[in-house]
Every structure is written in structure tokens, then in C-alpha cells.
């Protein structure tokens, strides 16, 4: 029994579960998103504890660094100014609570029932692949190199499928969130207005809104850029 490992595990578990609970109970949705980040980092720490270094880094990179920021952006872009005081949960939230607790009550006893079996299997699995010099515990867990090889070999097809999925998600997200240019409000700069006037798309107007005759333009200026 390694007390450090157990202690670290308990701390991480408390962090993950506690912030998970905060995510679903906190009223302020932004706080909830921030707690979500804490939960993600807790999970990443758990991966690190389980020697899945690559996955831990990916977890931080993707979840804590990108997904949560995306969520925060979405919240900030869709925050209703008037909707601060409305209820954040359904009226019958206790039904959801019952369901969740019920599920937990079903899963955990099942897990513990098979706990001993898994312990045995785990002990078997911890033996190194081929103990060369008698060091039975020098177990080489799979690293990023092995992951890469698996992606390129055994799991090539799923890998390609996932990449296509990501591409689809990329395109889909752009298409959904894209607002057509015509609907976007655009403020013209002076130069653009001038260009429009020159091309005759808009009649130049003076301060009162009367149309200025075309000939009146360009007379007052000594130096035209084209001439100079």
C-alpha cells in the first residue's frame, strides 16, 4: 500500500466529484462552467496518476483548454440581459435527482460485487511483458509511440472515420453559426462611401439629403491624385 498514491487519489477524487457537483448545482452558469474546468483538470490528474500521460495532456489541451473555453464563449454570447433572475433548473429537478441516485445505487453494488475478480485480473496484468533481467515489475505501459503505431495500424479505419467526423463537425459548426453577410450590419468608412459615390452606386447627397449634381464634384481640389 502506497500512502501517497492513496492520498493523492482521494484528493483528486474529491476535487473531481466536488467540482462536478458544483457544476450541476451552482446557479450562475459561468461559475458552473468554471467548476467544469476544475473537474476536467481533476480527471486529467487522475489520468496522470494512472500513467496515461499522453491522455492527460490531451485532456487538458482539449477539454480544459478548448471545450471549456468554447462553453464560456457560448455562454457569454447567449447571455440574456434580462434573464438573470429566472430559474435555472426544471421544476421537477428532484425527479432527475432520483434517477441519478437510482442509477448510482444500481451501479456501485454491482461494481463492488465484482471487485475481487478484477483485483485478481489486475494483479495478473501487472506482470511485465517479458521480464528480461528478472525485474518483474519493470512494466512498460503503452506510451504515445504505441498509441501512434496503433492509430496507423490496427485502428486506421476508426481513426480516419473520426477525422472525417471532426471535419464534418468543423464544417457543420461553421455553417450553423455562420450569419449571412447580407444580414450583418456593416458600417461604411468614408473611403468606401466615396468609392460608392464615384462608381455611381449611391447618389452623393449633401447634408439636407438633396442629390448633389455630379458635375459639382472634384472641382475644388487643386491636386488630384491621378494627375499628380
Amino acid at each position, binding site marked *: 500500500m502506497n500512502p*501517497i498514491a492513496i492520498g493523492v487519489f482521494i484528493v483528486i477524487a474529491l476535487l473531481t466529484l466536488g467540482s462536478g457537483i458544483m457544476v450541476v448545482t451552482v446557479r450562475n452558469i459561468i461559475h458552473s462552467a468554471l467548476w467544469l474546468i476544475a473537474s476536467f483538470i481533476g480527471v486529467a490528474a487522475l489520468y496522470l496518476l494512472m500513467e496515461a500521460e*499522453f491522455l492527460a*495532456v490531451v485532456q*487538458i489541451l482539449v477539454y480544459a*483548454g478548448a471545450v471549456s473555453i468554447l462553453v*464560456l464563449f457560448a455562454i457569454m454570447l447567449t447571455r440574456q440581459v434580462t434573464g438573470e433572475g429566472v430559474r435555472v433548473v426544471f421544476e421537477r429537478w428532484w425527479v432527475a435527482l432520483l434517477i441519478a441516485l437510482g442509477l448510482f445505487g444500481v451501479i456501485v453494488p454491482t461494481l463492488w460485487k465484482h471487485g475481487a475478480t478484477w483485483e485478481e485480473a489486475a494483479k495478473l496484468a501487472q506482470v511485465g511483458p517479458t521480464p528480461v533481467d528478472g525485474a518483474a515489475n519493470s512494466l512498460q505501459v503503452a506510451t*504515445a509511440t504505441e498509441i501512434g503505431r496503433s492509430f496507423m495500424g490496427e485502428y486506421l479505419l476508426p481513426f480516419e472515420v473520426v477525422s472525417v467526423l471532426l471535419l464534418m463537425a468543423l464544417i457543420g459548426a461553421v455553417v450553423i453559426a455562420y450569419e449571412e453577410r447580407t444580414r450583418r450590419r456593416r458600417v461604411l468608412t468614408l473611403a468606401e462611401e466615396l468609392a*460608392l459615390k464615384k462608381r455611381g*452606386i449611391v447618389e452623393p447627397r449633401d447634408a439636407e439629403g438633396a442629390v448633389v449634381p455630379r458635375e459639382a464634384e472634384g472641382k475644388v481640389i487643386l491636386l488630384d491624385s491621378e494627375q499628380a
Partner: protein
Amino acid sequence: MADALTQLGFASWLSVLIASIIKVTLILVGGSVGMMFLTWYERRSISYMQDRRGPNRVGPQGLLQPISEAIKTMTKEDATPRDADKIVHFLAPVVMLGATVLSFAVIPWGRMFPVDLNAAVLFVIATGGLHSIGMMMAGWGSNNKFALLGGMRGVAQLISYEIPQVMAIIPVVLMTGSMSLQKIVEAQNDFAGLGWYVFSPVGLLGFALFFTASLAEGERTPFDIPEADSEIIAGYMTEYSGMKFAVFYLSNYMSNLAVCFVTATLYLGGGNGPGVDALGGIAGGLLSLVYFLLKSFALFFVMVLIRATVPRLRVDQLMSFAWKFLLPLVLVNILSASFWVALLRWDQQWPQLTEWFGAPSTADATNWGRLAIAIVLTLLINAGAVALIMRLTNRNVQKHLYTTDEELALGLS
């Protein structure tokens, strides 16, 4: 270190704990001292560039100026806006600093590696990405328009530049065959310690791209949009004062230091250099540390030089620079890196190919003919790509003035 402690009679878990604590303390102290030196170094050198002297009063040559300023900021009033989200406002600098310190866990000092993580390169980038959370928290928690604007800008910038940054590393990872920083340093030890990646065409372009993207990640000029003081005051730091502001400052400079260290490690051979292997032992280690620090501070000097010279980009130009300039070049660089690796090491990677095609099996890396071919090929690819993309960028600049008639007409309606 842990082994030594175990031999002294500590329990194994205790020795691990003590060793970790000592390591963490050393890293923290090294990082903070490095940051303090960095501020002094930046201010002095930028002063000389501007024909003035810079801080020269506190201590010899003003070296103690950062300390006096640290004391000053610590004793200043720590104001929190009344309508701010107090906890978030408080936690933002903590998150920023935490992310920065985390990245120091894997960054080597010369040939000393605190932790040799399997995916160290990725880890550095990931912790850099955590900055965006701190920024968002600071921007949102301050309840200030400028802060929010600065936070949003900063986050958008960090996320955009993370992509070219990560992808600029891929050539290095390809050439090394590992993501461990230790292995990357070892791989650059050819040619009497001068086989740095920056001397290959792939590495040169990668170095330029990675360094540029890192400037943006570290919010350095010309990419210091989040704190563009002439536009949005101090950006997300607007509402911070006293120690909290100092923590932001600390985190910024420490991450700059980290960027310099990582760049030196990835492309400039880390602690490698002539004479390190020859000396060996502790002397070699110290020499490698000296080499490493020299390289890193030279890189930081380039940062300062850039800061003293160029204006900052506008926020939309910044984005298009990342997506339209850096990203294509980075992709091309990955391509040429794979050519490089295939040419130099294909018989090692795929021995069966050698059998099939009957090529001579030369296992050593210094096969000059192949090296020459690889250099020429990658150089051609990279130079061509750079020229092409610069040409396209130039055309975009020329075209920018007036948009098309249809767009204008639509905008008016």
C-alpha cells in the same frame, strides 16, 4: 535524488515526497529569480535601444530593482471592484500563475530535467492553453467592459495561435521520433554538440514559426493585443492592482521565460554545445546550463528587440496572420519534415523497404549524400512555400482598400 534519500534511511514514499518538494521549490525559485532577472534584462536592454539608461539605482546596475518593485506592489492597496465577482476575480491570477508554474515541471535547465514526461512537448503547450482560462476569468470577473474585451481578445488569440504552435512542433517530433524533451535534446547532439535542428531547413522554418506563434502566446509585441494599453487600457488586467497585478506580471514573464527555454530546447539544441560531452560530469552539466541560459536569453533579447521596433497588429490582422500565414506554412513544414525523415531514416524506420528495393543499408545518420539531398529538397519546398504565401499576402494587402461594389451596396441597404 529519491534514491539517495532512500539510502539515507527514509521510507520510500517519504523520500519521494521530500525529493518532489525540493524539486518543486528549486523550480519555483529558479522560475521567479529568472523572471526577476528577465524584467531587469528587458528594461535595461530596451533602454539602451532607446538611448537611455534604464533602472540603475537599486543595487549594482539596478539589479535589485525587481525586488524593490515586488515589495512595492506587495504593499500596495489591493482593490477589488464592488460589482466584481469576488471569487473569480481573486482566482484568475492564481490560475494564470498556476498554469505557468505547471509548465516549468517539464522544462529542462540545460541537461537537468525536472520530470521527463512522455508527452512533455504537448504538456508545455497544454499548460500554455490554460492561460486562456485565467484570462477569461479575469476579464469576466472584473465586471469591466475593457477587461471583458481584453479577456475575449486574449482568449481568441491564444486559441488561434495554439494551433500553429502545436503544429510547428510536429517536425521536431517527427525528426526525433519522440515527444520527450530529453530525447529531443539528445537527438541534437550530433556534430560535436552542434547538430541543432535550427540548422536544417525544416528546423529553421519551424523555429521561425514556433517563435512567432510563441510571441503571440506570451502576449509579446507585436501580438500584445490583450493588453494593448492604448486601446483597451490594460485589457483583462485593468481592474487589478497590488499583489494580484504582480502575480499576473509574474506569470507573464515566467511564461515568456518558459517560451524561451522551450524554443532553445526544441530548436537550438538545449544544453548541447561544443565541449559539453568532452567535459562530462558536473562540469559538463554546468557548461550545458550556461549554454542553455545563453541561448534562452539571446532569444529573449530578440523578443525585446522586436518589442522595441515594431508596432502591434490589429486584432483582425492578428487572426488572419495566424490562419492565413502561419498555418499554411506550418503545414508545408510538416510535409517537408516528413520528406526529411523519410530520406534520412527510411531504412531504419522501414527495414523491409530496404530489402525490397535493395538499397544500401546505412544505419548512421551522417550519410552526407542523403543529407545533401534532404537539405536541398526541403529547402526548395520551404522556400517555395514562403515565397508563394508572401506573394498571396501581398496581393491581399493591395486589394484591401475598397471592397466590391456588391458588398458595399449590401452594406448600405
